[in-house]
């Protein structure tokens, strides 16, 4: 494929430029509670206007935009609804060895959570498989308190 990059003038100057900042994000009641329970190795969803349990808990209903407040604890294992295999992880990815991104519908939840699955190979992944949480050793508050998911050992 003819990828044309125009750099006929060799002496055009270029220089590295880094945009970096340690943003400090205030969380508010819903996200704050979710991360607090994550730190205690519990996962809480929130009930939407139509009764669906939404995980992770959104502050406002995705359909009616109503303010949500009723928390519901959900399971720490669930079903993969879709996945994608990363053979070459990028520096910021949650895992640095080949892994799968997945949307995981946890037991008791009606929507899926986006996270990484530490599977041995792409062939180990399929929609509908069950995976469970692998908790981070030292939680700091945030989605990475879930280090990743791992396939549930078949019974």
């Amino acid at each position, binding site marked *: *494929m*003819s*990828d*044309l*990059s*125009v*750099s*006929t*003038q060799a002496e*055009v100057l*270029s220089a590295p*430029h880094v*945009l970096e900042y340690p*943003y400090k*994000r205030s*969380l508010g009641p819903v*996200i704050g509670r979710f*991360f607090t329970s994550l730190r205690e190795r519990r996962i809480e969803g929130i009930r939407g206007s139509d009764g669906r349990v*939404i*995980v*992770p808990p*959104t502050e406002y209903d*995705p*359909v009616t935009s109503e303010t949500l407040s009723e928390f519901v604890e959900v399971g720490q294992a669930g079903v993969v*609804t*879709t*996945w*994608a*295999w*990363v*053979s070459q992880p*990028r520096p*910021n*990815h*949650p895992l640095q060895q080949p892994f799968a*991104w*997945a*949307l995981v*519908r946890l037991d008791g939840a009606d*929507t*899926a*959570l*986006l*996270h*990484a699955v530490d599977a041995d190979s*792409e062939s180990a992944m399929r*929609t509908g498989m069950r995976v469970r949480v692998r908790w981070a050793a030292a939680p700091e508050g*945030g*989605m*990475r308190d879930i280090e990743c998911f791992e396939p549930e050992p078949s019974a």
Partner: protein
Amino acid sequence: MREVALVAFAQSPSVRQDLRRNEVEILTPVIAEAIRWGGVPRKEIGFTCSGSCDYLAGVPFSFVSALDAVGAWPPIRESHVEMDGAWALYEAWVRLQVGDVDSALVYGFGKSSVGDPRDISVLQLDPYYAAPLWPDSVSLAALQARALLQSSGYTERDFAEVVARSLRDAKRNPNAQVSGDFSPDELVKARYDVSPLREHDCPPVSDGAAAVVLAAGDLARKVCERPAWIAGIDHRIEAHSLGARDLTKSPSAALAAEKAGMGKGSLDVAELHAPFSHQELILREALGLGESVAINPSGGALAANPIMAAGLIRIGEAAQLVMDGSAKRAVGHATSGPCLQQNLICVLEAR
């Protein structure tokens, strides 16, 4: 609704990396060509609106220096959206409906080669639940592609056929960055980027710009032989969290098409802004596009994807076909956000 038409469209050749020129230097000749072709003298343009993204350039206010490409003196009526130029076109269309202004210059530009668009796109995501995991744009698109494969009869070969057709059509497009003859069988053997998407299922990294001139009523007829009239234009957005959406459907595209009156007549051609091959399949279904509608004769975003201009280019390409008489009724589509979360439909027709 006041009659408004596209009377000119210009774009820069899409390139992997333009080391020679900065954004303004790429944009200036494109705007000059659109103005020259649009027939409305620069100083008489009633409104100017542009789309760009600071983060793409890595500096705040990158759109301010772009004003130099427009010649904003004496001072002009001007606005800017931090969105694809297609939304700047929508704002200009609305501005012309007010009635006190008869023409508008719209442009979109971006150099995706300066930063890494796969990571920059992460900062669009939910800053608490998604962005901290850094799921890059190809990873999210791959999740959508897998969901489509599971829920429909489509196969990875169908993805490859979209790519093969696009890159073959792109051979006739002088501004395409990637083009050529590839067989679907050959393409499905290529290595995955993030499975199930292969490198060619994904858009190229591109530097580029595009500009359009809009004119209302008699002015459009005066300056353009065959104006591409905007029969309808609308855009809609869906909920953000991926886990709460049905990624295999595009309800916002379907709703925008309905509101824009796309179904009120047969279509000759559709330029769909589908940066990933599987997204064209989702959009074709959402918009009910049958075999009779030519899809992406320009090669689409798979052949050239200057972020912040690629959506405007779709509308420009569709309008171009109406203006040169090869299409009577066409649709241009633009998308924004992860996995087609927000979609705009612009219906163009000859009158």
